[in-house]
């Protein structure tokens, strides 16, 4: 079997007395959409934060394409092919939509110690800007200040920025949250399309979306993996039904 794209080995993280993740191991294979589900407080977002580097881990190791990234600073992970969206949208609120996108594009165009040419007139960056905005349906809103976008549009922009980084592994933290039904369908379509280009680790509460999108699912409860498997395996797993799905039915 090929080396998994992302390998997590015995990861631990505590906040004081609260265990956010404990002896957690997980493999995400190249090309799959891997969903992470679990009740509130299961440690899903914490795990994404640890993978992305927003949080340090107490112990355990994280590998991306075989390279250890456990202690790599946040900014060194993006160049290795890691991009993420946040649960609480964090676009640059006082910059315009195109400036937001430009920063994401600029990020993988070498260093930004360029002091003269205007960023918004740089042909190299502009060549990518149009398609990147197009991809998330924000071409019309290019000059809008990002803080003035609707909630759904901010989410779109955030996903778009993650895509502009051309990641190998995309971490999506509840992308559907707060989206209307129409928006969720659009986003599902987009995620399905992305699958051809990248691997996706998805945290989501919308079960319908997860069962239709995911190739494999991992269930987290209190920071521990309860089960990992295909959609059908997870649906029929008694432990999962009891621990998690049971609550909903």
């Amino acid at each position, binding site marked *: 079997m090929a080396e998994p794209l992302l390998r997590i080995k015995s990861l631990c993280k505590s906040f004081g007395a609260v265990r956010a993740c404990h002896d957690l191991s997980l493999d995400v294979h190249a090309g799959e959409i891997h969903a992470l589900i679990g009740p509130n407080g299961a440690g899903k977002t914490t795990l994404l934060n640890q993978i992305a580097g927003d949080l340090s881990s107490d112990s355990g190791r994280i590998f991306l394409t075989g390279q250890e990234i456990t202690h790599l600073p946040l900014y060194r992970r993006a160049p290795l092919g890691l991009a993420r969206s946040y649960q609480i949208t964090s676009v640059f609120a006082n910059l315009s939509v195109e400036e937001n996108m430009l920063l*994401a594009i600029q990020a993988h165009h070498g260093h*930004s110690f360029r002091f003269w040419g*205007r960023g918004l007139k740089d042909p190299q960056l502009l060549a990518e800007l149009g398609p990147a905005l197009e991809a998330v349906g924000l071409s019309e809103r290019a000059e809008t200040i990002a803080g003035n976008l609707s909630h759904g549009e901010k989410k779109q922009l955030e996903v778009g920025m993650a895509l502009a980084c051309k990641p190998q592994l995309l971490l999506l933290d509840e992308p559907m949250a707060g989206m209307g039904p129409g928006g969720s369908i659009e986003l599902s379509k987009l995620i399905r399309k992305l699958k051809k280009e990248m691997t996706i680790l998805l945290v989501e509460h919308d079960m319908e979306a997860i069962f239709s999108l995911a190739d494999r699912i991992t269930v987290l409860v209190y920071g521990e993996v309860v089960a990992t498997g295909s959609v059908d395996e997870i649906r029929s797993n008694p432990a999962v039904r009891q621990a998690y799905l049971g609550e909903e039915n």
Partner: protein
Amino acid sequence: MHMLSQFNRKTICIISSALLLALLPMLATLAGEPYLVSLFSRILIYALAAASLDLILGYGGLVSLGHAAFFGIGAYTVGILAHHDFEETALISWPLFIPGSDSGLVAWPVAILVSALLAAIIGALSLRTRGMHFIMITLAFAQMLFFFFVSLEGYGGDDGLTLFSRNTLPGLDLGDDVQFYYVCLALLGAFLFLAGRLVESRFGMVIRGCRESEKRMQSLGFPTFRYKLLCFVIAGGAAGLAGALIANQVEYVSPGLMHWTRSAIILVMVLLGGSGTLYGPVLGAAAFLLLEEVLSIYTEHWMVYFGPVMILVVLFARHGLFGILVGKENRHG
């Protein structure tokens, strides 16, 4: 249409104030108030210092309360070089002999370099922190330099150094107030132009992104510390140039130039004019120094009125004078 009218308002503001500044010496002569030329030289110099602070404060979101340190170091560099030149002693006698200099072509670039170097050291330490820590630490390091120069008896200590004359520049006589005024104006104009390009460039975009959310910038893959540090260094160098000019203007340097209240006043200028605009701080410097000039005619206790005015500005006029003049929507870009 609306955008256009605001664009025009901003352009009209900038062009008319540039025109006013360009014609000022002539107007001052016509009005029979030649001292206005030196008052406005002072305004231009402080405008340069304030605009340089705006680069890190308004665009980078870094609230430095120690900017006067670089201003003061720039001034002292000119003062010390001139002192050794006048005394015909060595600035450094070992390992090689380096004399002083009274040439602006030497002293001013050295002033920029020395303050930029200092900004690199102070920045490297203080940029490890953020928020309140950053404010207090920049303040503390500036005070450290203040006390250093107070205790530096060799260069006048508390009393400071008096310059024998202004620096020399080929083809110009800086001793002439009008010529000196135009040199200040040209340097301020050049800085505003370059800084305007800078904030629109790729580098500037990174700095503006850091202001919004540094963590987000890092997760996009930007090593933000380096960018912020370089921005801090550029701002420090520009403040050093302003310091070199103020040393020439008053022909005197003292530790008071880098006292923390001076940093606070430069900060007040930036916010009074409108931060994140580059032109705002120029307005802010003019407003502050003119107000000081006018108010102190009427009362020696002008600060008792100015203090509450500043509080009101914070509470009710957050976008500063420039925001009021051009409309807050179009302050940037």
